[in-house]
């Protein structure tokens, strides 16, 4: 078996061949013109980079950058060996209950998830499209309504929407109003990151390229996100699919730099497998974990920050399947030091639905993995030679002061797992469910709205009104 280093070289070689000889189709005349003006060969709507060209352009992307929050305590340093987490955020149209039964997501669900994220110490980025509310107009201002809501309810960094030119321009206008700045001010202190998904194999659609263009022009971070499905939108063998995904992601990063050199660009992968029995995308699989591994390794080889999942799973409900799959992929992300760890809490059913219960279960998974990653300390107090001597052979430690002093920090304390005996009269399923629902309720009850000046709110109201949004109706819905 070849070494991992050799495999990375093999993948890079394959990707360069794809980029040089097969090309990537861009459904966007303007971006093709930009590529042409940068000396890139353009034929039949496809861009063909030489390896030297590609590697030069990606070298302009910063290896680390800061995403700024309204509250500086939530500023995020992205890159290097740090891992920051973000909630699941894929425009989920449904909420799944414990049985896996789906119902349409509502604006009230969106508000609840913004509050939960605000209350989650793991997350310093909020918003995006954690759910697609059925009861908001599905028009160009759908996401701007959600961004407005997030700006009112949270002081964390911000995540973008579904994309497209009009929506992205509205987004920039709202941010300039919120942070009392202009285009260059935004570029100097990036506030929002957004996904730029590819249309695998080897294509970018117009909407995503419009998003890339508007975000890059404003110096806001873009997360290039191929989701190649091995066996359907990519070769069935993971090596070929990863090479394809790598090619797509690198071209996206290069394009971001052609639009504006120095734009923060995250090399991403949501690549995974296909269930050959049904044709379904499988994101909770070992292939998914392998894609995460090679996403991190390749990005670090290229000197780029990287994005990968997450507590990914294909389970229909909060179940054994959800736990197995989510933990495996999330563990891979932490071990491989994925920088922007996306979809870290809340989703079920292959990006199909959000779940309140899964959200808190996933926080528990993140907590226990962080505990593992933090490793043991071997300082004198942790080695505890004093207590060991004092207790001696045959004694016990429960009554020792060292235990009392450290019992709240030395072990991971789960909010979800059932440990110890069950209370009388309660069955295990009921007890476990109660832990989940209690945790959700506790977090929502603890939520406090961060301050935002009335002047800023007035500016946001005026900005949103310009997009023909009924601000009063939105506020009424928010208050309800």
């Amino acid at each position, binding site marked *: 078996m070849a070494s991992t280093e050799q495999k990375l070289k093999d993948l890079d070689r394959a990707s360069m061949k794809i980029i040089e000889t097969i090309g990537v189709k861009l*459904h966007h005349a303007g971006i093709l013109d930009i590529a042409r003006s940068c000396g890139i060969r353009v034929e039949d709507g496809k861009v063909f980079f030489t390896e030297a060209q590609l590697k030069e352009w990606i070298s302009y992307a910063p290896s680390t950058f800061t995403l700024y929050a309204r509250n500086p305590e939530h500023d995020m340093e992205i890159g290097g060996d740090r891992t920051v987490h973000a909630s699941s955020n894929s*425009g989920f*149209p449904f909420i799944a209950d414990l049985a896996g039964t*789906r119902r*349409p997501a509502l604006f009230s669900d969106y508000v609840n998830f913004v509050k939960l994220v605000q209350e989650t110490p793991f997350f310093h980025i909020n918003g995006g499209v954690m759910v*697609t509310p059925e009861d908001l107009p*599905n028009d160009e201002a759908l996401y701007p309504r959600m961004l407005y809501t997030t700006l009112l309810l949270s002081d964390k960094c911000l995540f973008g929407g*579904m994309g497209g030119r009009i929506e992205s321009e509205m987004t920039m206008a709202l941010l300039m109003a919120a942070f009392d700045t202009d285009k260059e001010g935004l570029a100097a202190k990036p506030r929002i990151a957004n996904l730029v998904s590819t*249309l695998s194999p080897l*294509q970018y*659609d117009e*909407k995503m390229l419009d998003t890339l263009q508007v975000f890059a022009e404003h110096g806001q971070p873009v997360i290039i996100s191929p989701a190649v*499905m091995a*066996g*359907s*939108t990519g070769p*069935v063998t993971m090596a070929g699919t990863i090479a394809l995904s790598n090619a797509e992601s690198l071209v996206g990063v290069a394009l971001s730099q052609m639009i504006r050199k120095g734009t923060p660009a995250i090399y991403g992968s949501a690549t995974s497998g*296909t269930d*050959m*029995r*049904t*044709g379904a995308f499988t994101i909770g699989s070992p292939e998914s974990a392998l894609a995460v591994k090679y996403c991190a390794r390749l990005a670090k080889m290229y000197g780029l920050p990287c994005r990968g999942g997450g507590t990914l799973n294909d389970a229909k409900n909060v179940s054994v399947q959800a736990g197995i799959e989510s933990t495996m992929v999330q563990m891979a992300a932490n071990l491989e030091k994925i920088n922007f760890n996306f979809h870290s809490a809340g989703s079920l059913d292959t990006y*199909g639905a959000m779940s309140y219960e899964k959200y808190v279960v996933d926080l528990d998974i993140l907590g226990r993995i962080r505990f593992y990653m933090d490793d043991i300390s071997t300082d004198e107090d942790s080695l505890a030679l004093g207590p060991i001597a004092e207790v001696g052979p045959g004694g016990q430690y429960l009554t020792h002061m060292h235990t009392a002093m450290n019992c709240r920090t030395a072990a991971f304390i789960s909010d979800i797992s059932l440990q110890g005996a069950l209370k009388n009269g309660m069955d295990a399923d009921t007890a476990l469910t109660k832990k989940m629902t209690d945790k959700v309720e506790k977090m929502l009850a603890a939520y406090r709205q961060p301050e935002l000046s009335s002047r800023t709110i007035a500016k946001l109201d005026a900005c949103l009104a310009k997009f023909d949004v009924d601000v009063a109706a939105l506020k009424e819905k928010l208050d309800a």
Partner: protein
Amino acid sequence: MTDFNAMTEALVSCDAGKLTDLVNDAVAAGVPAGEILNKGLIAGMDIVGEKMENGDMFIPEVLMAAQAMGSCVEILKPLLGDDGGASGASVIIGTVKGDLHDIGKNLVAMMMESAGLTVHNLGVDISPESFVEEIKAKNAKIVCLSALLTTTMPAMKQTVDAIVEAGLRDQVKIMVGGAPVTQAFADEIGADGFAPDAGSASKMAKSLTV
């Protein structure tokens, strides 16, 4: 005596060479083309469909079987009647305006073709007006609309509305599908059917044409 079982077995085992030989032998022996199509090929694809539903055949294997069947249908076509051998109704299928995803839709098209329907695959990013024109041009009995994105689901309703406005609603059955699509959504926009996967979409299309 023609061994239709051997044909279905060759189809199920994706043995295109053997299937072609068996079909050619049957034609040479004077077996009516329609009988070969129905008792050999379509009967075989029914078994393939069942095996796929049970997880016993994988999608790529099903598609290989469908391709093997397709090449044999080409042999039979000149010998069949004016309808080119299609025993089923005319179906048009496409991904709605604004959406470029087509893998699931293509899978549905292949399964429907294998079930004997005459499928016209319009491609992706199809406007409501184009669907209406194609219904007229192809005398379609079934229209299948596909969308992967929540943002393009409204285009499904726009397409249904356009079909109603064009006065074609009574002529066609409308089916919808795609990852975010549900039965409730199908009901809401006035579609006749929703199928969660390619196999059941094909079955539903056949049942809607009966």
